[in-house]
């Protein structure tokens, strides 16, 4: 077990190096900075709305671009490595297959934590430079939840990478993440249908429970509108996010360990 975990750690380390040297990451960071500059320019012409625009664009970039980059990195470092057989030399070593999955997941997850932190720091810097009201309450809590969101997105991408070709893994992952962003709407729809349409209501509720409720991990609305963050929101979101990620990751490790051909 100890040597398997050591193997997972070594794979995570090299995956992190790969991610940090990958052009996808650099291009997305440059794009995020560009978006932030645009938001600053836009804010200068919207009196009274400056802070709101900068936070909105900064946090949306961190979540949206972050999710996209996490998926792309996992596809290139996991699904594509299986397809291109780069993974053969790793899997021929005394490392169990589940440790390979675990290593790939954590390598990309660590990279994503660095990326979203950089994006939040850039947003905070822009707010301070603009000298509006500074960083609002709950801003750093939003970074924490964004990190939890990245753990779910990375787990989704790792699951599909463990079972499908790079192209299909990419399509499925994007589909599930987009679906997860609308999961709360499905719950609302199910409640609205209520007793009138029992079957449809139950169906949408099941779909809601199956999908990751990613939208719930965003504090964008609360922060930009200066709303209070409900009690236990961070704790519940963290527990939900990590539990969902752990389930997907365990499932990915199981599937990859059982695969007949790699």
């Amino acid at each position, binding site marked *: 077990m100890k040597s398997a975990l050591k193997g997972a750690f070594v794979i995570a380390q090299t995956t992190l190096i790969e991610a940090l040297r990958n052009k996808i990451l650099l291009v997305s960071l440059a794009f995020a900075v560009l978006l932030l500059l645009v938001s600053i320019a836009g804010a200068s012409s919207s009196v009274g709305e400056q802070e709101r625009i900068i936070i909105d664009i900064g946090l949306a970039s961190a979540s949206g671009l972050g999710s996209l980059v996490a998926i792309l990195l996992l596809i290139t470092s996991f699904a594509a490595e299986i397809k291109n057989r780069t993974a053969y030399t790793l899997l021929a070593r*005394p490392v169990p297959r589940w440790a390979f999955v675990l290593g790939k997941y954590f390598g990309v997850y660590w990279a994503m934590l660095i990326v979203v932190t950089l994006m939040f720091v850039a947003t905070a810097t822009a707010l301070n430079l603009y000298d509006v009201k500074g960083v609002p309450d709950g801003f750093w809590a939003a970074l924490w939840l964004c990190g939890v969101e990245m753990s779910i997105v990375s787990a989704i991408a790792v699951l599909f990478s463990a079972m499908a070709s790079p192209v299909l893994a990419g399509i499925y992952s994007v589909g599930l993440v987009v679906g997860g962003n609308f999961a709360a709407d499905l719950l609302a729809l199910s409640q609205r249908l209520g007793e009138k349409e029992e079957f449809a209501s139950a169906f949408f509720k099941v779909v809601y429970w199956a999908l990751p409720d990613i939208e719930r991990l965003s504090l964008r609305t609360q922060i930009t509108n200066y709303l209070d963050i409900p009690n236990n929101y961070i704790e519940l979101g963290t527990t939900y996010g990590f539990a969902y990620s752990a389930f997907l990751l365990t499932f990915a490790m199981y599937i990859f360990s059982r695969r007949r051909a790699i």
Partner: protein
Amino acid sequence: MSAIKIENLYYSLKAHFWSKRLSILKGVNLEVEEGQIFGFLGPNGAGKTTTIRVLLNLLRQDQGKIEIFGADPRKISTRKHLGFLPEHAYFPEYLSGYELLVQQGQLAGLSLKESKSQAHDKIEEVGLSGKADVRLRNYSKGMLQRIGIGQALMGDPRLIILDEPMSGLDPLGRRDIRELMFSLKKQGKTVFFSTHILPDVELICDCVALLMNGQIKQQGALENFLSPKAHSGIVVRVRNLQSEHLVDLEKSASSVERRGEECVVKVKSMDEANTLIDRVRGWNGQVIALKPIDLSLEDIFVQEVTQANAESKS
């Protein structure tokens, strides 16, 4: 103890969900003794790479038993004794050669310190000193092959499995790899490699196996492999013959080829050669040389493949 023992190995696959199952390995039996250099031969599509992938637990067999040093290769502890170079040297191109070797060393169970120290030695051993810090994306095909062998040697495995190690190497590179294999053998390690470059096999292998259509066609020590069919004929070089004599010889010899004033006549046996010599002397011609034609491994390989293809067609 056998380094590798394969008994009755079957593997099949489905290209698509709806397609018929295709048999790739059809009862492969193979035994490689410890300390040997073993050549695994076969035409394209014979199942060499599939066999190697099953050995490494990258594919799971339908049926059959595999042992590496007496243990199941699916066990993690068994794979501690293995080093592997894949057919095409695919490595993460964002790493440098040194980083790749350190990573592989750690995965083989070495500490970071041991891994770093061994990586320096292996880089030197495969002739890549000075290129250690270059990213793999900037390596040539030959350099990738060398670093691939270097990574297979990390952790000092007892068994080194090389899938087409000579491909992409120039003659000097091939010579270096041959010497490396000899040095591994001297250290008591077992080298199991697949290749298409048969002259290399003749130079370095103790034993060979010929795989065709998913089955082992022949297996054994190289000298046994070659000796039963050691000669394919005899070449007699003659001169001072008239054209009508040559026409006469063409009727009895396997082939007659004119080269300036000389003539190269090929016959099947020593008896035929003696008859030929008597006739040439009778015509006042001169016999310059007499040489048996040794069958190379390549000749045997071509014969076997041709025969197997003919059998499968009929």
